[in-house]
C-alpha cells in the first residue's frame, strides 16, 4: 500500500467519472490542437503552394524598360553568381488580354500574365514541363483556358500594351493606339500547378497565365532581342538567403544600353549623353554631372512649344507653330559655345525671363531684341490623361545666327512618330496636333533644319516650366580631353542599377516569410473556438468536482485519519493530472480530426475566406506538443482550482457529503461582491463609451470586452445573491412555488449554478454578438457605404484608359 497505489486504485475504481472528465479534457485539447493544426496547415499549404508555383526561381527582376537578353547570360557567367545560383533566364513579362473569337461575341479574359520565354524557363519548374510554344503558338493554363473556353488548336487573340519608353503620363507620351494584337494558336493547355500557376506576386488565387515564345512578344512590342525580366534559379535544396540576394545584386552590371542611355560623340566636337526615354532619369543626371565634372558638363532641356508668338511693333500678331525650345546655359568656350548673333557677338548666359530666337524665327515673327515673346506649351504631366496648355512670357534678349551650335538638330531628343518623320504634316504626334496650323515656311524649316530649336531660354527657366517626376534634362553634353576612348568615357558613368529600376526581388524568400507569418489562422481559430474551449474547461471543472464530491467521504476519511490537507490535495491533483494527460492524449487524435474538419469547411462551406481550395492538412510535432501540454496544463489548473476549494472544506462536511459551505455569506462579503459587480459594470460602460474612438480590431475588442465585463458583473451578482441566503423560501411567493423551489435548488450549490449560468450566458452572448455583426449584402442595399461601394459591376482594363 502506498499513496501512488491508492491513486491508481482510485483511478480504476472511479473509471466512469474519470472517463467523463477525460472526454471533457479531450474536447478542450482537441479544439486547441485542431486550431494549431489549422495554422500549421495554412502555413504548410502556402509554403507548398509557393514552392510549387515558383519552382527553382528564387529571385526575379522586372523593370519598366527593355534591356538586352545577354544581360542574363552575363549574369550567369559570373563566378560569384554561380556560388549561390544556377541560372539567370531572360523573360518578357507583360500584362495582357486573351480573346477567343466566336460567333455572338468574343470571350475575353483580362489580367493575364503573358510570359515570353524559351525552354530555359520551363526547366525552372518542378514536374513535367510542356513543349515550349513555338512561333505563332501559345500555351494557356487551365483556369485561363476554362474562362475563355479555349481548347488546343483554337486560335486566340493576344492583346498587350506597347512598350513605349516615354511614359504615357507625360505630355509627350503616347496615350492612345497603344495596343498590340497577335493571333496565336493554342498549342497546349497546362494544369494550374507548378509553373502553370506562376505568379510574380505569389498568392493562393489561381492566376491566368499565358506562355509564348520570347520572340513573339519581342516582335509584338518591337523590342527585338530585348527582355524586361530576369528569373534567377537557386540551387536545389538550398534556402534563399539575404547573403545570396546581396551577392546577386552585386553581380548585376547592366550596360548603358540596358538603361536606354547613349553616350555619343558629336560632329561639333562635344560628347552627348541622351536617353531613349527622351528625358534622362534624375539619377543619371546626377551620376553624369559627377562623372564628367572635369569635362564641363552642360545639361540641357529641350521641349515642345505649341506656339512662339510676338506682337511686332507694327503689323499683326505673328506666331510660329510646333517648335522646339532648348533650355541651356550658354557658355563661351568651345565646343559647347559660343552662340553668336548674326553680327558675330557672343551671346552671354540668359536670365530667367530672357529668350533668344534664332534668326529664322526672329525674322518670321518680325521682332527685334527687347520685344516680348510669348510661348505656349503643354504642361509636362497630364491630368487624368488630358494635356493642358500653359503660357509664359519672355523678353527677347538677342537673335542667334542659325549656324554652328545654334543650328544643331541634335539638341532635340528623338521622339518616335515626330522626329523621325519627313514632314511636319506626317507627324503621328502623341499630343493634340493641328496640322492646319503648319505653314509652308514651317515645312521648309523642317526640311532644312529638322529639329533644330528655334528658341533658347535659361536652363533654370526651362526646368521651372517643364520639369516633372520624369526628369528635367534631355541631354548632358561635355567636352572630354583628347585621348580616352568613348568606352572609357562610358565606363566613367557609374549608375546604380536599383536607382533605375533594376531591382531583384527575392520572391521565394519573401514568399516563404509571408507564408510563415501569414494571417495567424491558429490564433484566429483559437479565438473562434474559445467558447468551446472555455465550455470544455468549465465542463472539466464541473465533472471533476462532481466526481470528487461523489466520493467526498473518501477525502473526509483520509483527512480524518490524519493525512494532511496538502497531501490529500496532491493525491487528488495527481489523479487529475493522470486524467488530464489521458484526455489530452485523446485530444491530439481528436484535434487532428477537428483540424481536418475545419479544412474541409474552409475548402467547401467557408471557401470565401480563402478564395481557393488550396489547403491540405499539415501536422507539426510542435503543435501536437503544444496542444498536449496546453490541454494538460489548462485542465490541470482547472482541476487544481477545484481541488483547492474541496480540500478547504471541513472534514465533517466532507464525511456528510456536504461539499458546499452551507453558511450564508456575511454581509461584508455580499457587499464586496456587489461592489466588484458595480466596478465591472463601470469598466464595461467605460470600455463601451471609448469604442467610437477606437478603430478596427480594437473596436471589436472593446465590444467583446465590455460584453464580457457585463456578463462577469451579472454572474458576480447572481453568485452573490445565491450565497447571501436571501433567495427566500417557499412561503415568500406562493404564486410561483415551483420557480421559488428552482431558485432554492440553485442556491444550494451557488458555485455550480453560477458556472452553469455562465456557460449558457456565454453561448447566448456569442451567438447574439456574432449575429449582430453579420452583414447581409442584400439588406445593405446599394449605398456608397455598402460593401460593394454601391456598384453592381466593376470593369478592369489592362491598359490605362
Amino acid at each position, binding site marked *: *500500500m*502506498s*499513496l501512488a*497505489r*491508492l491513486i491508481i*486504485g*482510485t483511478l*480504476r*475504481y*472511479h473509471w466512469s467519472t474519470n472517463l467523463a472528465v477525460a472526454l471533457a479534457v479531450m474536447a478542450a485539447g482537441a479544439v486547441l490542437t485542431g486550431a494549431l493544426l489549422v495554422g500549421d496547415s495554412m502555413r504548410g499549404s502556402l509554403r507548398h503552394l509557393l514552392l510549387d508555383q515558383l519552382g527553382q526561381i528564387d529571385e526575379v527582376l522586372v523593370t519598366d524598360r527593355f534591356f538586352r537578353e545577354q544581360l542574363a547570360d552575363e549574369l550567369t557567367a559570373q563566378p560569384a553568381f554561380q556560388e549561390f545560383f544556377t541560372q539567370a533566364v531572360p523573360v518578357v513579362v507583360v500584362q495582357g488580354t486573351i480573346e477567343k473569337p466566336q460567333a455572338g461575341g468574343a470571350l475575353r479574359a483580362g489580367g493575364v500574365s503573358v510570359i515570353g520565354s524559351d525552354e530555359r524557363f520551363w526547366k525552372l519548374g518542378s514536374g513535367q514541363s510542356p513543349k515550349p510554344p513555338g512561333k505563332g503558338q501559345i500555351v494557356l493554363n487551365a483556369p485561363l483556358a476554362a474562362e475563355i473556353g479555349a481548347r488546343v488548336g483554337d486560335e486566340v487573340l493576344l492583346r498587350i500594351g506597347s512598350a513605349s519608353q516615354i511614359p504615357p503620363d507625360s505630355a509627350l507620351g503616347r496615350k492612345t493606339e497603344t495596343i498590340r494584337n497577335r493571333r496565336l494558336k493554342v498549342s497546349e493547355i497546362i494544369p494550374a500547378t507548378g509553373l502553370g500557376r506562376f505568379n510574380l506576386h505569389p498568392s493562393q488565387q489561381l492566376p491566368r497565365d499565358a506562355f509564348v515564345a520570347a520572340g513573339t512578344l519581342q516582335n509584338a512590342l518591337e523590342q527585338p532581342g530585348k527582355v524586361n525580366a530576369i528569373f534567377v534559379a537557386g540551387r536545389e535544396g538550398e534556402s534563399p538567403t539575404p547573403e545570396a540576394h546581396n551577392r546577386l545584386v552585386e553581380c548585376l552590371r547592366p550596360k548603358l544600353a540596358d538603361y536606354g542611355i547613349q553616350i555619343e560623340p558629336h560632329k561639333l566636337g562635344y560628347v552627348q549623353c541622351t536617353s531613349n526615354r527622351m528625358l534622362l532619369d534624375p539619377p543619371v543626371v546626377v551620376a553624369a554631372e559627377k562623372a564628367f565634372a572635369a569635362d564641363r558638363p552642360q545639361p540641357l532641356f529641350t521641349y515642345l512649344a505649341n506656339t512662339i508668338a510676338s506682337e511686332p511693333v507694327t503689323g499683326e500678331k505673328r506666331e510660329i507653330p510646333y517648335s522646339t525650345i532648348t533650355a541651356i546655359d550658354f557658355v563661351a568656350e568651345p565646343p559647347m559655345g559660343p552662340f553668336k548673333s548674326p553680327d558675330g557677338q557672343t551671346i552671354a548666359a540668359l536670365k530667367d525671363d530672357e529668350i533668344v530666337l534664332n534668326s529664322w524665327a526672329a525674322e518670321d515673327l518680325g521682332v527685334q531684341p527687347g520685344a516680348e515673346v510669348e510661348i505656349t506649351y503643354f504642361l509636362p504631366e497630364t491630368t487624368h490623361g488630358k494635356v493642358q496648355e500653359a503660357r509664359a512670357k519672355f523678353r527677347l534678349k538677342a537673335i542667334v545666327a542659325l549656324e554652328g551650335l545654334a543650328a544643331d538638330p541634335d539638341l532635340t531628343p528623338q521622339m518616335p512618330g515626330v522626329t523621325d518623320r519627313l514632314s511636319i504634316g506626317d507627324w503621328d504626334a502623341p499630343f493634340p496636333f493641328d496640322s492646319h496650323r503648319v505653314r509652308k515656311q514651317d515645312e521648309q524649316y523642317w526640311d532644312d533644319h529638322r529639329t533644330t530649336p528655334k528658341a533658347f531660354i535659361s536652363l533654370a527657366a526651362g526646368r521651372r516650366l517643364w520639369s516633372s517626376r520624369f526628369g528635367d534634362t534631355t541631354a548632358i553634353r561635355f567636352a572630354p580631353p583628347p585621348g580616352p576612348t568613348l568606352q572609357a568615357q562610358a565606363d566613367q558613368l557609374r549608375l546604380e542599377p536599383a536607382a533605375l529600376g533594376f531591382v531583384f526581388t527575392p520572391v521565394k524568400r519573401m514568399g516563404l516569410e509571408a507564408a510563415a507569418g501569414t494571417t495567424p489562422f491558429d490564433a484566429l481559430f483559437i479565438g473562434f473556438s474559445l467558447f468551446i474551449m472555455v465550455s470544455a474547461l468549465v465542463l472539466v471543472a464541473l465533472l471533476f468536482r462532481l466526481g470528487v464530491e461523489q466520493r467526498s*467521504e*473518501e477525502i*473526509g*476519511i*483520509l*483527512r*480524518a*485519519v*490524519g*493525512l*494532511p*490537507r*496538502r*497531501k490529500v490535495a496532491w493525491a487528488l491533483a495527481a489523479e487529475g493530472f493522470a486524467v488530464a494527460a489521458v484526455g489530452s492524449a485523446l485530444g491530439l487524435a481528436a484535434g487532428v480530426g477537428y483540424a481536418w474538419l475545419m479544412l474541409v469547411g474552409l475548402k467547401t462551406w467557408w471557401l470565401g475566406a480563402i478564395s481557393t481550395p488550396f489547403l491540405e492538412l499539415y501536422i507539426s510535432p510542435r503543435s501536437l506538443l503544444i496542444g498536449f501540454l496546453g490541454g494538460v496544463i489548462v485542465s490541470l489548473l482547472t482541476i487544481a482550482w477545484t481541488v483547492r476549494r474541496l480540500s478547504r472544506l*471541513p*472534514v*465533517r462536511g466532507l*464525511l456528510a457529503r456536504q461539499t458546499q459551505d452551507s*453558511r*450564508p455569506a456575511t454581509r461584508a462579503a455580499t457587499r464586496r461582491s456587489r461592489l466588484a459587480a458595480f466596478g465591472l459594470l463601470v469598466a464595461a460602460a467605460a470600455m463601451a463609451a471609448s469604442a467610437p474612438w477606437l478603430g478596427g480590431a480594437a473596436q471589436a475588442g472593446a465590444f467583446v470586452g465590455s460584453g464580457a465585463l457585463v456578463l462577469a458583473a451579472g454572474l458576480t451578482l447572481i453568485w452573490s445573491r445565491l450565497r447571501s*441566503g436571501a433567495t427566500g423560501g417557499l412561503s415568500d411567493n406562493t404564486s410561483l412555488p415551483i420557480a421559488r423551489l428552482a431558485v432554492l435548488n440553485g442556491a444550494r450549490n451557488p458555485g455550480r449554478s453560477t458556472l452553469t449560468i455562465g456557460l449558457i450566458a456565454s453561448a447566448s452572448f456569442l451567438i447574439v454578438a456574432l449575429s449582430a455583426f453579420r452583414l447581409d449584402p442584400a439588406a445593405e442595399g446599394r449605398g456608397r457605404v455598402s460593401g460593394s461601394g454601391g456598384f453592381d459591376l466593376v470593369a478592369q482594363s489592362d491598359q490605362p484608359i
Partner: protein
Amino acid sequence: MADLLVTGVTKSYPTRAEPLEVLRGVTFELSAGENLAILGPSGCGKSTLLYIVGTLDAPTTGRVSLAGSNPFDLSEPRLAAFRNHKIGFVFQDHYLLPQCSVLDNVLVPTLADGRPTPEAVERARMLLDRVGLSKRLDHVPAELSGGERQRTAIARALVNRPALLLADEPTGNLDRATAATVGRLLLELQALERTMLIVVTHSLELAGLLARRMELNAGRLE
C-alpha cells in the same frame, strides 16, 4: 492527572437566522484505559462534541487537552499529524475506501508518514486477526458484510496505536446481534490497547457495556 481534559467547551454555528448554540460549556476528563459512553437525543450535539474532541472541528470557546497538549494550538499539518498518531475514529458509517482491500484500508492512516513500514503491516494483520478478518485481507469492502466492514474500521482506527479512540454510533447501522458483537469487540480491543474510548450512541445496550455514561442534554453534559 487525566490524559484527556475537556474544559468549558462551547460550539455555535452561524445560520441564516440567529447563531445555533450546540454545546454550552461541556467539561469532562478521561484517563488511559478508561471508557465513556455519551448518550443523548438526536441533535443534542453528541457528534459535535466527538468531532471537537477528535480535533476535526474547533470549539467556539473552551479547551481540549490530550496527552498534555492543546491540539488547536497546532498548525494544520501538525494537527493532522497529531490526529494521525493520537486519535482513532470509528464512525456510524464505516467510510472504507471501496477501491482498497481490507488490509489496505487498515493501512490508510499509515500513509500520512509515507509508505507503511513492515511493522505497520504486521500490526494491521494482527488487528484484522483480532477482529476476525484474517481470511478476508484481500477482499474489498463491497465483498464484506456490514459487521465486517465496521470491524475493519475498528482495526483501521487502532493501527497507529492511538491514545484516544472515538466511536460515533459505531453500531448504528448494524442489526442487534452484530451490534452486540461489534460493541464487545470495541471494548475488548480498547482494554487490550489500553486506549481511552469515547462512544457516542443512542444504544443503551452499547452504553451499558461501558464503564462511564454521561448524557448530553441541551448542550450540557450531565
